[in-house]
């Protein structure tokens, strides 16, 4: 999961004050036969909020988003989006939202502009108004020159921006983005997130799923899913505070992975998780201070390990949550 994208240093600005929530889910549940894909999920998303939905593949993120978009009927529970019930009035939901599905499903044999004209038409738009809107949006995502390019010839990052504006043509109040950055290069992902934050600042509510933990730092609030359950929901800072007691260290060394089971058993160690080629070690400073930690690492059976203090990331929160369960 971690990759070359640097973790953004400053967390996103705090969420706007909630008026009437844009999205409400109450005990939302979806079964596929015996399998419960989403179980008793409840949350509210305020207008203008960027709400991140995190979890591993298969955790139930896409199923949740599909229910909220009126594409999949809930088995139990209910949800309202832009004031409309997703089960009873999916058509009203569809008019109010923009949806970018996991595979940013554009027609690859069509030109960029043809794709946008098609989706504009699907929303009942047309004529000069649609043409102006397309021009403005292409300009905004810096694709004005690519309007006549065959969509399949665009690199993934640019195609993803086209998919985003295809979902925005009808000026929806709420945008649902399902893994919008999957398979996109880190630089393109940063550009994309800048756009998302601009949109939210303009009042659009953004509900976004991702399995890139670093991206979650851009969100106002985050819901974490494992195995169909929403196991945590808060701002990034609060999540770290609540779920990551103690201090976090980055531990490096040639045999760090082999040393983890032994480290976990040591008194004062709250958690130890692989993190890229290194590991994140969380310790209770009252029981294991810096000097004793250094000694523990230097004398281990797995060669010399080095540790330095780091800021905890959302991935640490996620791993701690999975471990807790």
């Amino acid at each position, binding site marked *: 999961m971690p990759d070359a994208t640097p973790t953004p240093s400053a967390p996103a600005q705090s969420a706007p004050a909630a008026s009437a929530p844009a999205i409400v889910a109450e005990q939302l549940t979806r079964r596929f036969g015996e399998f419960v894909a989403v179980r008793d999920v409840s949350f509210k998303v305020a207008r203008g909020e960027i709400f991140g939905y995190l979890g591993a593949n298969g955790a139930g993120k896409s199923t949740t988003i*599909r229910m909220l*978009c*009126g*594409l*999949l*009927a809930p088995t139990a529970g209910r949800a309202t989006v832009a004031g409309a019930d997703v089960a009873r009035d*999916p*058509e009203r939901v*569809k*008019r109010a*939202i923009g*949806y970018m*599905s*996991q*595979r940013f*499903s*554009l*027609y690859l*044999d*069509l030109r960029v502009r*043809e794709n946008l*004209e*098609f*989706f*504009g*038409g*699907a*929303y*009942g*738009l*047309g004529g000069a108004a649609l043409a102006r809107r397309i021009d403005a949006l292409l300009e905004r995502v810096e694709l004005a020159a690519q309007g006549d390019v065959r969509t399949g010839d665009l690199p993934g990052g640019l195609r993803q921006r086209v998919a985003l504006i*295809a979902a925005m043509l009808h000026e929806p109040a709420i945008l649902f983005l399902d893994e919008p950055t999957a398979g996109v290069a880190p630089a393109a992902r940063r550009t994309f997130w800048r756009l998302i934050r601009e949109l939210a600042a303009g009042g659009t509510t953004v509900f976004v799923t991702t399995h890139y933990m670093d991206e979650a730092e851009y969100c106002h609030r985050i819901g974490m899913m494992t195995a169909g359950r929403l196991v945590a929901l808060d701002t990034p800072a609060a999540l770290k505070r609540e779920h990551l007691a103690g201090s976090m260290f980055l531990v490096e060394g040639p045999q760090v992975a082999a040393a983890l089971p032994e480290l976990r058993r040591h008194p004062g160690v709250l958690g130890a998780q692989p993190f890229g080629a290194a590991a994140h070690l969380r310790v209770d400073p009252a029981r294991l201070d810096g000097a004793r930690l250094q000694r523990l690492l230097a004398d281990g059976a797995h060669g010399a390990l080095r540790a330095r203090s780091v800021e905890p990331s959302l991935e640490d929160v996620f791993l701690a949550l999975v471990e807790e369960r």
Partner: protein
Amino acid sequence: MPPFFQRLGALAYKELLHMLRDQQVIYLALGMPLVMLLLFGYAVSFDVDELPIAVLDHDGSAAARRLVRGLEASDAFVVRDRVREAAAIEALMRRGTIRAGVVIPAGFARRLARGEQASYQLLLDGADGTTARIALGYAFGATAAAASDAGRGAVPLLEPRVRALFNPALRSALFIVPGLAAVIIGILAVLMSTITVAREWERGSMEQLFATPVDRLAVVLGKLLPYVAIGLLQLLLVLTAGAWLFGVPLRGSLATLLAAAVLFLAGVLGQGLLISMVTRNQQVATQLGAISGVLPNLLLSGFIFPPDNMPLPLRVLSHAVPARYMVAVMRGVLLQGQRLPQLWPQFLGLALVAAAFLTISTLAFRRSLD
């Protein structure tokens, strides 16, 4: 413009772009009808030309020679061999040298001269039933002509004078091409339309489409319209080629034909879309499309086998096959010059089947991912 038409227009235009961008579709849509027309038009022939025969003449009379000349005069037969005994005919036929044998008994001329009924034996190769049956027809005609010559002054024989209306020479191309045009267009329409919806399911664009407010009728009609246009183009192409290569006439009105073709295409495309919507899988859809496109169109349409001669269950089933009505319309308009007043049962059939397929496929088209 009302949003429904805005959406319909966007969907139809998008589908048209897919078609134009895909060279395979163009080849399939415009090349295949011509290839099939040539294959069927030339290969499927019910005409019999210069069938080699052997003659065993026990009579040796002028009357016997006249009979053989009469057979040869029809161009259907050519005498390959003259033999001395009946066993030789069977041997030649087994070897494939001849396809039929004629045995003229002794006393043939004498009986004719006395005004008695004379007979000769025609041995046919039953292994090829189609050819045998056609040869039999020609032999009857030639014998009747010979008999009227021989029977001069004797008891006048009852003699049919046959004239095939609309196709005086009974050329099978004239009979085949109009039906073939309907069958080709029907098969291609099913083949092309089965993959369109399945492809969108597989590529995920269907999910994206469902998240928009397009209603399912717009999706179905939007898929349909460009393929109707292609189908009409194919029809004109096949008719032009049929007229040029096989001399197929257009005795009725082109407008009637095109109107029927629109209903016909709506029916076969509805069938293809239904398959596509239910399977959601290109491979399965292609296979089902090939089977359900080719078999009913070829076998239940009356293109080769008249529906009236089918066993009851198949005859009932044939009423659900749009090609059944279209084959009749094509022959009626092209060869017989029929107009709407005579064709309304066919038009009604086409309209009902089209309405049924489109209604079912629209209803079967769930706008959700369940």
